[in-house]
């Protein structure tokens, strides 16, 4: 069925007109409401994309967003320093003293970059009704599923409300650097 749709889209795109313009907008990510776009116009197979319009290669090297996030967490919260340090040699109090600041700053970064908030408005222990088409990505259901559509929230889940990472414009050779080496010339 998808292949059929893809071919339809392919020919519509070739023919031009409104559908073609819409497709172009979807491909360039210009449709503002991504939900409605996804519902009404499923993304075509990648093959069709390359045939109808070759995507130009990015000119500037792009850093993986995962590395950008790690770099931000290290820079502002020193999270990598904390998780890379062997814990066996320290008493809990010493670990706690360092972790408190790191965790506070980590949260601040995540708040700014992702806007993390619970997926459900209901708090733990409260009852909630399952929607009929409960997506397994949103709902992890335990217990008997036979007909019962009401349950207790064990964990309200998490979601990001946005994703705004720093823009990276470094050189390709540095794309995997998380934190620079620090050197003091006066020491």
């Amino acid at each position: 069925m998808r292949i059929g749709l893809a071919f339809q889209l392919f020919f519509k795109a070739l023919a031009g007109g409104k559908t073609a313009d819409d497709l172009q907008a979807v491909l360039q990510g210009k449709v503002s409401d991504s939900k409605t776009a996804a519902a009404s116009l499923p993304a075509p197979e990648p093959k069709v994309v390359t045939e109808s319009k070759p995507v130009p290669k990015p000119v500037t090297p792009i850093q993986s967003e995962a590395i950008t996030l790690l770099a931000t967490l290290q820079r502002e919260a020193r999270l990598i320093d904390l998780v890379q340090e062997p814990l066996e040699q320290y008493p809990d109090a010493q670990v706690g003293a360092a972790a408190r600041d790191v965790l506070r700053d980590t949260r601040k970064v995540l708040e700014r970059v992702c806007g993390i908030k619970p997926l459900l408005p209901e708090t733990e222990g409260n009852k909630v009704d399952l929607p009929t088409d409960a997506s397994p990505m949103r709902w992890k259901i335990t217990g008997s599923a036979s007909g019962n559509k009401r349950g207790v929230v064990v964990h309200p889940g998490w979601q990001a409300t946005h994703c705004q990472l720093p823009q990276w414009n470094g050189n390709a050779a540095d794309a995997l650097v998380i934190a620079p080496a620090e050197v003091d010339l006066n020491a």
Partner: protein
Amino acid sequence: MSARFAVGIDLGTTNSVVAYCDLAEEKASVQLVPIPQFVAPGQIETFYSLPSFLYLPTPEQWASGVWKLEGDPYQNLVIGAYARQVSAEQPDRTIAAAKSWLCHSRIDRRSPLLPWNSNEPVEKLSPVDASKYLLLHLIDAWNKCHPDAPLSEQKVVLTVPASFDMAARELTREAAIAAGLPEHFILLEEPQAALYHWLQSKGDQWRRAVKKGDVIFVCDVGGGTTDLTLVQVEEEQGELVLKRIAVGNHLLVGGDNMDLALAHFLSQKFAARGTKLNPWQSVSLWHSCRKAKESLLTVGGQDPQTIAVLGRGSRLIGGTVQTEISRAEAENILIDGFFPLCPVDALPQRQPQSGFQEIGLPYEHDTGITKHIASFLSSQSSSVAVRPTHLLFNGGVFKAGAFRERLTQVVSSWSEAGSPAVKVLGDLDDLDHAVACGAAYYAWSTSHGGIRIRGGTARSYYVGIESAGLAVPGIPRPLQALCVVPFGMEEGTAIDVQSREVGLIVGQPVSFRFFASPNRKEDKPGHMLKWWDEEELIETAPMELVLQAEAVPDEGFVPVKFHSKITELGVFELWCQSVRDNQRWKLEFNVREDAEV
């Protein structure tokens, strides 16, 4: 081309913000401009404020291309979050508080001397240029999000501290025009902008919040400076009007002092336990104090709180040192140190005068902000101090409720017995952005007939004239001060100063010493002062002009009188008007040399 947007720019000492609204809207809805800036080499992040710091990278660093901002608004500079982050570690390569240097009359503000006392081979910038580059960054941010409406074509209001004198305002204007602000932008005092923000949030309801005779005290404590303003509510033809009646002197004390005071206290605690902090740890401690300042004063928060200085290098846990601070200690340092209880006739301690005073920013000797406020309120009249009825807070410091409560308590304690308690105006949600938003609203309201705070000049101004008489070697001739601008002279007015004639010498620079007074409100233009208190008249940059020989007859001098003018945009002009014909010449501020040294 006509402007589409009203734009307010808050060029702050520590943070800058740009706000705007659509001029076509019938009801102003103000938004903030996102400002992209470097947070690390090659990492650009966007915030709604720009730390007013400039970092000067080495030529090699710059050449590597990691500091390249799209569109190249400037070269060899990094401005914003990264510059602030490294400012403590690399003071020789960062410029901070350029704005405070702009109103420092003992230095040449157009010569490259920042970073102050830098030992690095950097290409230094003048305070005017540093301000220009900050504005360039802000203009670039605007143009990036409004590519079809360049800032040079919009209606722009730029804010300045109320305490800025004429010369500092003129330099701000110079920097702004050089950066590309439209020729006809308006200068607005920051505390007034904060009040406009409150007026906007209230709509027409503000008339119910205050009544005739009320006095609103706007207290703006920013990162590095404190700015004070009094606005009186008056009634004209049955309508309430607002009149700015006084502004305080430029006070170099603010939130940064509080962080430092806290850090200093804690480093002594560390030392007492045998932990000596190295310079890097001290900087780190200072940052920790900045973050902890608010939570330390929160009622019902943890007590005592732990302050940790994380280990340097990748040995984070092993290198971490920590100490505790109790709420009582924090209150003692921050609240009693900066907002001490004091009577209304309290006086701040003056800087001890010594023969060798290091030239640098003239930081306040006394950090008791309430004492500065008391002295400000008392100096407004010779008989009784002004008693404010309302308080409007501004500046990030007041995010901590304890500071707001203490200041309200102190100001209330100065009210006469039996009078109602001092009321606090405004919400807390916008302490960081109120000035820019208020400025944008003001720009919008000038073409939508909104309320306007009146007040004119916040000072009276004087030119120094040497009295004639026998010259005594080694002793300067006695100086008299001629009032050329009275207190409260309104924008868009001009005055012929009635006085004796003054002879202008032809062909060589003529320089007049220039003075300002915040509290001589009765002096009329033409009034000649033979004697004054040193505290009363403050010398600012001198004004000068060169009279070309061909312009005048041959006696070698021209008898003139003064003519002063303040344009609609708040630009001050002082002219010498020939008494013989219609010729006149404009005096310019000379900020190149120090009048005192």
